[in-house]
């Protein structure tokens, strides 16, 4: 074959060109028909940007339908510090900004702006807030003369408002900007229409309290604007726009009046006691305390007070690092800890409820079993002596009298008799101690009630911290009066008394009562999305021969020879009899923890009130007094009928 024949060469050329075109067709088919769906997704992502607008969070109502957390729009002017560094006439700019703000209803000094610029933000990503709640005029001016205000920006933010100020701040919690780590791990909820309430780097989330636990409900559905951008990322049009939708409202069991009363009573009493001396001469630090008010009928949390506390408003526009640090040390206590659920205290004599239940239900004693209390109880050989508080001698007493006058000797005796068993611990477990209550708030503590085995295990695991791993009779004697081998949270204590009050049902305490539709009307039943049903976590068996003697003993506490009688002088107990138990837990080196656990009215208990106050001395004089002030309000509510309409009707 002649390889240089022109015909052949022309054919070769033709075949090459044909091959090229076939290759183009094949590739075209591949791209436009086979790969198109996958590539089109990339292309869309390329030319659109999603702009998310945060939606208002749901509102929060109290049990009586009052708005306790609301929203409002705040116009905030801030300065980007990094941008400010690039501004030439920095001082002139700040002076100009101060003038504009001052002239338009937000008086501000240059020095104030400078100070805000130097304040370290807890959230470094945000610009330094210079002025919040500025007027529309300021915004008009800033946008009109934008080129005169480099690095200055403004935004319209929906912020939380708290019509009742700091009330219930520990329950409500606060919101803040999402962190990068949280953004990765947080699972987004869906709104009533099933739309995912997605998160973005600028999203605001609940960081504490109900704001955190009900984040999925409260969060609104962000507005999503799909903006078409050109290759230089400049917006050229809107492809779709989904306006933001408010989050679900929620209604709490909290009665804001009771909450405010409990907080005020606590703060007032701590202030009175602070710096005074208790009986043995120890100075009362009285730095902190808590009050829990529970509905024993369903575990609804009517009030949850803790002191010291913070103003959630301070978090609304971003809090400075200095102020944040300050909040962590108020009279030596952190305002950011909710002591009612996280504080752990030896329950002292309030625990005698549990010991008495253990002894009576296991047949160790009956209502008549009595011993002679000469003020001292001796254990072992050589004898170790355990005494009554204040070396009081109570004479011949049974369990009823022992509870009323708080005889330690009687309960030392019971603890001695139950040594070698776990009867007290079992009873404590039945009442819900040594376990989380499951309340719908974050950072709850567990407490502990050690057994012989647990003490040993702890020693084996941490021999340094727990040098002694043996269980002595003395340990059981101490346990019987709620000391040394036991700590509880105020909420656990309240729940145990609630269980006793309602005849033995242990409820999981709940702050939130109902989930409501966005922008709901609290009185409209159609707006209820769901009611949080009471959850029973256990029962205490309380037959009459067990419950009656204890009830009789506790009934006596608030009157006559009772340990809390002094706190209830002048309180009309015929209309609203109160059943309770004082506790005075010794803490080495500082003043005693004062406790009072109670419920009322006696025959049909509607409220459990417990107060626990650190370094505050004897039970009645601190916690008893605080509780009385709470009962005064509750009693007046009962008598006027104000409280009955909404409490506990969670069917």
């Amino acid at each position, binding site marked *: 074959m002649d390889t240089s024949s022109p015909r052949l*060469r022309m054919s070769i*050329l*033709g075949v090459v060109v044909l091959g090229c075109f076939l290759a183009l067709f094949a590739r075209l088919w591949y791209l*436009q028909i086979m790969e198109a769906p996958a590539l089109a997704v990339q292309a869309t992502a390329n030319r659109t940007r999603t702009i998310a607008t945060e939606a208002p969070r749901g509102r929060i109502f109290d049990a009586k339908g009052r708005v306790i957390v609301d929203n409002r729009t705040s116009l905030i002017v801030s300065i980007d510090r990094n941008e400010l560094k690039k501004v030439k006439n920095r001082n002139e700019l700040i002076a100009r900004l101060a003038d504009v703000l001052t002239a338009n209803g937000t008086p501000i000094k240059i020095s104030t702006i400078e100070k805000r610029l130097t304040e370290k933000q807890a959230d470094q990503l945000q610009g330094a807030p210079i002025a919040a709640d500025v007027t529309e005029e300021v915004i008009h001016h800033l946008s009109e003369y934008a080129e005169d205000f480099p690095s200055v920006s403004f935004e319209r933010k929906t912020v939380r408002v708290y019509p009742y100020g700091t009330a219930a701040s520990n329950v409500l919690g606060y919101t803040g900007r999402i962190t990068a780590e949280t953004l990765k791990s947080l699972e987004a909820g869906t709104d009533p229409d099933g739309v995912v309430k997605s998160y973005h780097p600028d999203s605001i989330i609940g960081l504490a309290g109900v704001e955190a636990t009900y984040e999925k409900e409260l969060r609104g559905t962000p507005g999503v604007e799909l903006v078409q951008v050109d290759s230089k990322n400049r917006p050229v049009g809107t492809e779709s726009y989904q306006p933001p939708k408010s989050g679900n409202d929620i209604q709490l069991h909290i009665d804001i009046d009771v909450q405010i009363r409990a907080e005020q009573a606590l703060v007032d009493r701590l202030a009175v006691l602070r710096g005074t001396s208790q009986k043995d001469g120890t100075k009362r630090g009285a730095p902190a305390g808590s009050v829990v008010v529970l509905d024993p009928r369903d575990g609804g949390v009517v009030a949850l007070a803790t002191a010291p506390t913070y103003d959630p408003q301070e978090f609304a526009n971003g809090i400075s690092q200095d102020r944040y640090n300050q909040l962590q040390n108020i009279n030596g206590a952190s305002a950011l800890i909710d002591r009612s659920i996280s504080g752990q205290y030896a329950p002292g004599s309030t625990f005698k409820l549990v010991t008495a239940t253990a002894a009576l239900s296991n047949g160790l004693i009956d209502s008549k079993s009595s011993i002679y209390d000469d003020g001292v109880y001796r254990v072992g050989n050589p004898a170790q002596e355990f005494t009554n508080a204040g070396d009081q001698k109570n004479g011949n007493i049974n369990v009823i009298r022992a509870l009323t006058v708080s005889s330690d000797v009687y309960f030392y005796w019971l603890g001695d008799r139950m040594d070698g068993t776990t009867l007290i611990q079992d009873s404590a477990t039945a009442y819900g101690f040594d376990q989380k209550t499951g309340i719908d708030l974050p950072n709850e503590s567990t407490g502990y009630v050690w057994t012989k085995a647990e003490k040993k295990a702890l020693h084996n695991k941490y021999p340094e911290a727990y040098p002694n791993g043996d269980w002595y009779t003395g340990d059981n004697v101490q346990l019987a009066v709620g000391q040394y081998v036991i700590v509880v949270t105020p909420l656990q204590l309240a729940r145990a008394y609630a269980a006793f009050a309602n005849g033995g049902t242990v409820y999981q305490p709940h702050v939130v009562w109902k989930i409501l539709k966005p922008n709901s009307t609290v009185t409209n039943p159609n707006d209820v999305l769901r009611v949080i049903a009471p959850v029973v976590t256990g029962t205490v068996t309380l037959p009459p021969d067990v419950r009656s003697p204890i009830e009789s003993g506790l009934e006596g506490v608030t009157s006559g020879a009772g340990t809390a009688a002094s706190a209830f002088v002048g309180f009309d107990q015929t209309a609203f009899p109160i059943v309770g138990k004082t506790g005075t837990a010794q803490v080495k080196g500082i003043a005693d923890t004062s406790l009072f656990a109670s419920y009322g009215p006696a025959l049909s208990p509607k409220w459990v009130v417990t107060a626990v106050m650190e370094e505050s001395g004897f039970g009645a004089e601190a916690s008893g007094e605080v509780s009385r002030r709470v009962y005064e309000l509750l009693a007046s509510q009962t008598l006027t009928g104000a409280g009955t309409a909404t409490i506990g009707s969670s069917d």
Partner: protein
Amino acid sequence: MLPQSISSRASNMSRRDPTAPLRHVDPVLIACTVILSIVGVIAVYSATRGPGPDYSKAYLYKQSTFMVIGAGVMVVFSIVDYRKLHDWAWVFYGITTALLVLVVSPLGSQSNGAQSWFALGPFQLQPAEFAKLSLIGALAFLVSEFRGDIDLRRLVALLATAGLPMALIMLQPDLGETLILVVITMAILLVGGLPTKYIVALSLVGLIGVLGALNSPVLADYQRNRLTAFVNPGDKSNKALYNIEQSQQAIANGRLTGQGLFDGPQTKLGFVPEQQTDFIFTAVAEQFGFVGSAVMLLLYGLLCYRIWRIAQVAKDTFGTYICVGVLAMFGFSAFENVGMAMGIMPVTGIPLLLISAGGSSTITALAALGLVLNVHMRRFQ
């Protein structure tokens, strides 16, 4: 007899004389040219009007003007007997070579790192475009003179003729245009009877040259990246890949029937760079889809087929070689330009003839087609 004969030929040329050029215009070639030119003007407009609402019409007017001028040039290049042009081949070659020298002198203008054009008021003259046609003319001239007998000495002469403009264009530098000249030369040498042993030898030298160039400092990094991007589509560090990804996404976005005229979002929003020239195919593919772009490629293929066919029926070898050169020019232009946009060819910017915006390339393309038509019209004379 004679005067009458002359007068009858003059007055009834097309009717009486079966060899008259006007009786042998190629309607298919002309139809393809016209349709592709219209498609080109529309594509250029859609790629340059911007996202609106103030649409820019500058490119629309400019490209239309070039088409009109080009049409005139095409008529001229088809009417003047190509065998007369035979004698002018070296004049054209000389002029364009001179222009190529001048363009790399301070007289030329620079953009995107290449000094490749003269600024003539609002227009830009790219001598490299004209060099394609003048090289075709010069090589066709030489190879037809050699009458299928190419020895080493003649081969050297041919390579020197082709090498001069190539070297000058590489000075700009413009890799794409140089490659077209290489392909044109290869095609004419192939059909012109270059002995097989030389073809093999040249292929080997070319292969080694390409590999050597890729691994030597002759090419700038960006050039190397662009050339190899299509081989390593996963290489994220390669910036040239961004363009190819964007263009492939735009093409894919066209799907079967396209987004519709002026409705291609990638095209409209300027995600694809150099969209009116090097990546013009993306505008066509996104807006008209597989159906539209396949039809356009078919028209292009049909045009190439006609040129190939005319090369075979040409009256003389000079005509054949001209057609072969023009075929190589169009075929490679389509394969490289469209192939690059679809990610199967290296990134070297060359226009898709008749479709891409550009005065010099459009006028050269139409002139080349005028020559081919010329050869066809005079195949019996």
